[in-house]
């Protein structure tokens, strides 16, 4: 069946693919070969090819400059928008006009190309599952994504060889997944805090219709930000406690991308532990010392409180736009991994005065909803209908730089607006429309979507009557048509997206995606073997540095020999040889590991320290 449509949640941190099982009528996530449902949205550009998902994530700290994560935060954006954030990203972002470009793995790529790698991996996962090719997908985006960000997501699909038949908003998708069984009729608030974005949507569910009343959010707020404040706080603490060692070794951690990545990953892990535990121990081995500290949930809450607070304003605005108060909300649904943070739950509960729903796995619910929408589009479900809204007002720049709003925010889509235009000079053949999105009064404060140039026959000033139709389709994407009424001729429109790709660029990227193919299975396994070797080498190096005095000369020599052999094997292409050498190093350091473990325990250090120095075995 070639009309199959899959549902994809293209997340900041994790992505998933799902479909509706014909037999049960229920949506299901498709796991990878190892049974893992989530595909980390991480793409590494290695000399051997492109690696995506878990193996890419595992080399984040080792190849920070060539491993791209959280690229969703860069979609549909310009350099100016992201330059503050870029300071914290270990890969290079090039300064320039138009959409963001990254310099990774010795070439330039755009965010849609990076996302395309993730989409392609999910497409292939689905194809393996069904044993046939899959060409169509519903892809979700944050509800508060603007036109450029949506368009960028569609472009990513095309580059990946997928026809994105519908862009669906993540919170709305989640409500569809819940709506199948768990929601009764009424007014629902969906609070979605993921890795990179925050959305809130208020819906009315009635007679199988899911009508979105209002949406609000922040496309730059999520778990990534929690990790960042925590990592910066740790950085200060490390500097304060270990300045002696740092000065001695002339190390500036903030300028060491590898150390910063380790710190970020450790911060995230601690954050996640603190969702279920009251306190946790952080242990970070650095070259010359080991940093260790206890942290409580209260410490974390103090740090992230302002970030959690930033989600409440959008919730209130969405309520006000829907013409409702918190008491009118019948049910609250939590979506996104960051809603596992107890403080987030508390704040949401306080705001709406209801215990939120979280029966469905918050990581999976968006993908499940995308699958439901895909099934609706494929004709498999006829009693459910989603009526979504456009999150931001759409307007055009008029005289004096004022925005003339044509379609207000929270208008049900599809929707259209018509405006008449004329010329101001005799013989004018070009009319320039500047289309904007946003809630501010001045054009310069709104998001520029693009410029549309209407070409018409020359006439005296004021004579032409050009009717321009702005249509926001069911994807929330703008389409513009124009007609000169006197001649009844369709005026030609040239679109110049401010932060987008044009046709030719997308075409070239589709070709590129074949040239720079994803590493094949053999190469991928080789890369994995090398990654593992690198990890073992790092751990062995640290163990030697910290514990060399604890073992005799012969043992030390044996370890050094094994390490040298692994180094040699790693530089070759023989996967089996790398595996063997890796195992040999592991075996050679076994005793040293025990000794260090003992020392650590005697020194009243947590056992975690030793395992982290030596690696999990």
């Amino acid at each position, binding site marked *: 069946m070639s009309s199959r449509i899959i549902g994809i949640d293209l997340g900041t941190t994790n992505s998933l693919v799902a479909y509706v099982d014909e037999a049960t009528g229920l949506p299901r996530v498709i796991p990878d070969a190892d049974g893992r449902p989530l595909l980390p949205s991480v793409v590494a550009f290695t000399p051997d090819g492109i690696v995506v998902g878990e193996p890419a994530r595992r080399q984040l700290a080792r190849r920070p400059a060539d491993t791209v994560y959280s690229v969703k935060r860069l979609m549909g954006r310009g350099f100016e928008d992201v330059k503050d954030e870029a300071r914290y990203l270990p890969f290079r972002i090039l300064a320039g006009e138009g959409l963001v470009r990254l310099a990774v793995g010795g070439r330039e790529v755009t965010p849609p190309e990076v996302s395309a790698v993730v989409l392609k991996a999910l497409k292939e996962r689905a194809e393996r599952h069904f044993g046939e090719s899959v060409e169509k997908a519903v892809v979700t985006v944050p509800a508060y994504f603007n036109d450029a960000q949506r368009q960028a997501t569609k472009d990513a699909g095309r580059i990946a060889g997928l026809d994105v038949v519908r862009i669906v908003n993540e919170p709305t998708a989640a409500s569809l997944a819940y709506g199948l069984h768990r929601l009764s009729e009424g007014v629902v608030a969906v609070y979605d805090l993921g890795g990179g974005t925050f959305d809130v949507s208020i819906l009315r569910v009635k007679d199988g219709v899911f*009508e979105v009343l209002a949406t609000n959010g922040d496309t730059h707020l999520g778990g990534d930000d929690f990790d960042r404040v925590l990592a910066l706080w740790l950085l200060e603490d490390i500097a304060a406690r270990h300045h002696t060692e740092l000065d001695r070794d002339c190390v500036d951690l903030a300028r060491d991308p590898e150390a910063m990545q380790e710190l970020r990953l450790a911060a995230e892990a601690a954050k996640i532990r603190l969702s279920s535990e009251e306190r946790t121990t952080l242990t970070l081995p650095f070259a010359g010392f080991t940093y260790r500290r206890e942290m409580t949930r209260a410490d974390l809450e103090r740090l992230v409180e302002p970030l959690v607070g930033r989600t409440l304003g959008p919730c209130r605005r969405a309520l006000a736009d829907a013409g409702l108060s918190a008491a009118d909300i019948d049910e609250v649904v939590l979506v996104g991994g960051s809603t596992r943070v107890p403080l987030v739950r508390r704040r949401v509960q306080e705001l709406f005065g209801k215990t939120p729903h979280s029966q469905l796995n918050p990581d999976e619910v968006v993908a499940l909803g995308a699958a439901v929408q895909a099934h609706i589009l494929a*004709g498999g479900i006829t009693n459910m209908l989603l009526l979504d809204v456009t999150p931001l007002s759409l307007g055009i720049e*008029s005289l004096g730089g004022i925005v*003339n709003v044509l379609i207000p*925010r929270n208008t049900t889509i599809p*929707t259209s607006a018509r405006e008449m235009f004329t010329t101001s000079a005799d013989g004018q053949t070009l009319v320039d429309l500047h289309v904007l999105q946003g*809630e501010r009064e001045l054009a310069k404060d709104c998001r520029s979507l693009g410029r549309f140039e209407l070409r018409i026959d020359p006439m005296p000033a004021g004579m032409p009557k050009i009717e321009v139709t702005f249509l926001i389709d069911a994807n929330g994407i703008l389409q513009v048509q124009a007609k000169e009424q006197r001649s009844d001729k369709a005026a030609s429109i040239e679109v110049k997206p401010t932060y987008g790709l044009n046709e030719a660029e997308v075409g070239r990227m589709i070709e590129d995606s074949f040239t720079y193919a994803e590493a094949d299975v053999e190469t991928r396994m080789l890369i994995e073997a090398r990654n593992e070797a690198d990890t073992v080498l790092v751990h062995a190096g640290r163990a030697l540095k910290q514990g060399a005095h604890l073992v005799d000369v012969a043992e030390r020599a044996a370890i050094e020999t094994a390490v040298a052999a692994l180094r040699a094997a790693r530089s070759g292409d023989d996967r089996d040889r790398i595996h063997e050498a890796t195992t040999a190093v592991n075996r050679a350091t076994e005793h040293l590991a025990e000794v260090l473990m003992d020392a650590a325990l005697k020194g009243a250090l947590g056992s975690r320290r030793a395992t982290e120095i030596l690696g999990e075995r």
Partner: protein
Amino acid sequence: MFGLPRKLVVDSAELQRRFYALAREHHPDFHQAAPAEERARIEATSALVNAAYRTLRDPIARVEYLVRLEEGRETKEGDIDKPKAPPALLQEMFEIQEALAEARSEAAKGALDETTRATLAEQRESLRARLKDEETRLAGPLSARWDSAAPAERPAILAAFKEALATRAYLRTVSADLTETLGGDTEAFGRAIEGRHGSAEAPRTRGGMGGHIGAPHQ
């Protein structure tokens, strides 16, 4: 379109039910397999249904739409009457605006002093209350009167509509200006209630129909 009588007072539950039915019938979701042209037509219809519902579900937007319809019938294109508010109101609004301008230049120098702040906040509260009254009157008694009026009485009610709409627009604009100057806690609600994207626009944001842009090129 919704098969309901053409009245200003509408049964909103019934309207919603019919909207859902129409939305289903014309939504692009259910016509994915249709040829491209057909799909474009359905998309346009769907947009129309959505826009109609948006206008009809809101009692104030209904009145505004009616006024436009009636005006369009009576007047020639181009000379649509600008809504006029009562002169007393204009005078009052003008005074508040002046006080506001003064407060703003004060604020530019340093912080707004507490008494001015309190006065402005009080004024805003009173404006909001009046705004609410005006809306209730428009949606309630005035709308009901129109529905039962004989044709001869209609011009008078229409004039009352226009005055009420203009009054409402001024109240909204000025109270939004107050919010802007006062800033702070009311931001979240203020924007939604008084923002320029409500169902009606304040007189200063839009004059007649259509924009007039397009600078000479080349």
